[in-house]
């Protein structure tokens, strides 16, 4: 290895460049996790619904999305995204890469979050919702005031673990040409021919963020959730853990 290429990483200009990349990675992660939480909640409720016309499309969405790689979704939206939205925004609408990435990441993550939330809701003792219904609460109110607050609280560690995954997955949005942390390293090393140093540098950044988050979520996990729910969550996380 050539040690002379390391001096780049003390240069404030280069550091600011990486900081900008990191900022976009964080923005991408936060936007995607927020969107996927909202969509995931809808599909979790849809899948638990007693109405078949809500339940079956939800099952198809979750199982279908989880069966394909997230990179496929991201690449698809980067190519096709613009023409998908042209009917709504006019003929010359061009979907920014940021939103193509958000759509791909959110579609995938929303299916995972739907499964996590469903596991959380099913884990609650049935007495909870039965008592709420018996007290005269409607179904939406039962969900809103009794079931969801408890289920969400129990699922916080799992949702945080998903945030770690999504931060790692944002690197895939770099491959469709969006400027984020991975892309910033790529620009640096194509100009300076120092891929090892540049990739090593961003690996440290990814590691610090993801390691901190995963330790945090592990700490929260202690003593929470019954055993079979934890098994279900572990399964979801293993099966859909990406990049």
């Amino acid at each position, binding site marked *: 290895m050539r040690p002379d290429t390391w001096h780049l990483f003390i240069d404030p200009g280069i550091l600011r460049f990486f900081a900008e990349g990191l900022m976009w990675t964080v923005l991408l992660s936060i936007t995607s996790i927020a969107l996927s939480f909202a969509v995931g909640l809808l599909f979790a409720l849809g899948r638990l619904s007693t109405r078949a016309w809500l339940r079956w499309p939800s099952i198809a969405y979750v199982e279908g999305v989880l069966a394909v790689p997230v990179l496929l979704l991201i690449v698809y939206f980067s190519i096709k995204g613009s023409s998908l939205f042209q009917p709504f925004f006019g003929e010359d609408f061009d979907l920014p890469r940021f939103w193509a990435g958000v759509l791909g990441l959110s579609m995938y993550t929303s299916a995972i979050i739907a499964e996590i939330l469903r596991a959380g809701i099913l884990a609650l003792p049935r007495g909870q919702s039965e008592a709420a219904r018996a007290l005269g609460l409607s179904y939406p109110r039962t969900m809103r005031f009794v079931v969801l607050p408890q289920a969400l609280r129990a699922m916080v560690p799992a949702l945080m673990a998903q945030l770690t995954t999504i931060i790692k997955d944002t690197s895939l949005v770099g491959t469709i040409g969006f400027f984020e942390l991975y892309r910033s390293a790529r620009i640096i090393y194509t100009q300076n021919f120092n891929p090892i140093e540049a*990739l090593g540098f961003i690996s440290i950044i990814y590691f610090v963020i993801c390691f901190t988050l995963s330790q945090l979520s592990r700490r929260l996990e202690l003593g929470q959730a019954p055993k079979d729910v934890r098994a279900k969550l572990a399964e979801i996380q293993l099966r*859909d853990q990406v990049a």
Partner: protein
Amino acid sequence: MGIIFEFPDLYLFPSGLWVTIQLSVVSLIGSLVIGTVIALFRISPIPPLRWVGTGYVELFRNTPLLVQLFFLFFGAPLLGIRFSDEPLEFNFRAALLGLSLYHAAYVAEVVRGGLLAVDKGQIEAARSLGLSYLGMLRYVQLPQSFRAVVPPLANIFIALVKNTSLATTIGVVELLKAGELIESRTFRTVEAFGSVAVLYLLLTIPMGIGVNWLEKRLRVAR
């Protein structure tokens, strides 16, 4: 539809699918071997080995697979490791190694969990009967952990099949790349990526059903 079914480059789909299957199976074997070794490191009585094991797992789980693949792709030649002189073969082998190393970290956690779940009395009994530590691992602890470990490993395999798509980024022509190539030549985006999605579905959905079946079977037997 129409045009895509007459297109001469359609062979890319079966050949891409075949590359995806090869990547999945070989990386699975690689990650099982590496992951088991790392798991043994993590439960070893020797502290430095434990540190190496823990360091490996945390390092590989907390950085993006994409970055790891590029790291190998650029780093291996600098360290004097040449996977192959033929560029396509080079990319393929780099992807194999990258996927194996990444998933080995997950395999290690699962195998470690399985090993720790074996009843302590079993281990003590084997040791007091005169088996060496390695002999005890080989004949008592590893075989007993097998049952607890198979369903989660199958889940990792499903993730691995999906993650082979990242090999595209270092120039392996697998299923996703095949779809991208066909799309770029026909401009039939929906058909090209739809076909790729269906092929992935055909790989992963039966595997998911298989895992559920395995879980039920092994749970009853326990």
